[in-house]
């Protein structure tokens, strides 16, 4: 069945990039390469949010900006993930209701 083939193919091209680095990188990197990998999470998160988040609330910019701000401000003052997350979700939900 062709969908089975599709799933199998997608699995291979998705899993290989996920697993190969674990075997390719034997030692902890050092120097500039180490700094590259240390910086990668922050860079990745920023790239994942911008610009895609801005269109994530049915394409409307304002609730997306408000939601991101709510998340950032709440997270600045409150530790943990759930409270800031609910703040952001709440802001967006309230906007959509109104």
């Amino acid at each position, binding site marked *: 069945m062709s969908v089975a083939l599709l799933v199998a*193919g997608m699995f291979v091209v998705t899993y290989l990039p996920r697993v190969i680095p674990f075997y390719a990188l034997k030692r902890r990197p050092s120097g500039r390469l180490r700094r590259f990998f240390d910086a990668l999470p922050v860079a990745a998160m920023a790239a994942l949010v911008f610009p895609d988040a801005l269109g994530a609330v049915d394409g409307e910019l304002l609730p997306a900006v408000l939601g*991101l701000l709510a998340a950032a401000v709440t997270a600045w003052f409150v530790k943990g993930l759930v409270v*800031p*997350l609910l703040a952001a979700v709440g802001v967006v939900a309230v906007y*959509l209701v109104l």
Partner: protein
Amino acid sequence: MSDEATRNATFERGVRRGLPIFLGYFPVAVSFGLLARTSGLGFPAALGFSGIVFAGASQFMAVLLLSGGTAIPAIIGATFLVNLRHLLMSASVAARLSERVLTPILAFGVTDETFAMAATMEEARHPRFMIGLELAAYSGWVSGTVLGHLFGGFLPPILQTSFGFGLYALFVILLVGPIKRRALNIPIAGAAAVAHIVLSVVDRPSAGLRIVLAMTVGAAVGALLPPDEGGQADPGETS
């Protein structure tokens, strides 16, 4: 890794810390399950996409392309490009792991969200904690798909959209800790964001490569800056 972090790095705590990812994944997975069904895909197919591929953006794309009549090899090629960013993410996770065990399983669960959360938690250096985190994410994704396919869009659209947005909020929240701790993370984040915005505006290269390029630009800025001496800020430290 401190002794306290090691003691706390249990599988169970990993699963519990994965709750925000579960909350974000579940509604998005419900949409996926529903989309799969309305596109004519059976339950095994939907389950296969979510349970075997486990890569949200590419799953949505694949179902839409399939409905549009795109050939299977082309969809597989597009999937490869869209998911290529996991290569860098896995390299980052691998570089931080305290030991290489359960690698095939651990590697399977590397997603944007599990990678991002792991990067800010000392405990995630420990494989069993990381796998716990990934299991929480995976459960949310698969259970949402199942319920979405079986029962359709039972979540009110407003909740669906706002919780789906939560995944982006999650990244912002995870950025606050590192930025508070070290101001130099601002140019790194800024460079990546600007790069991605510019590439998206000019619409080149393809979507999957754009994010890889943007991440690389940001990380390259980080490589040029002085090393990060401080420890990892854990945003969930007291929770």
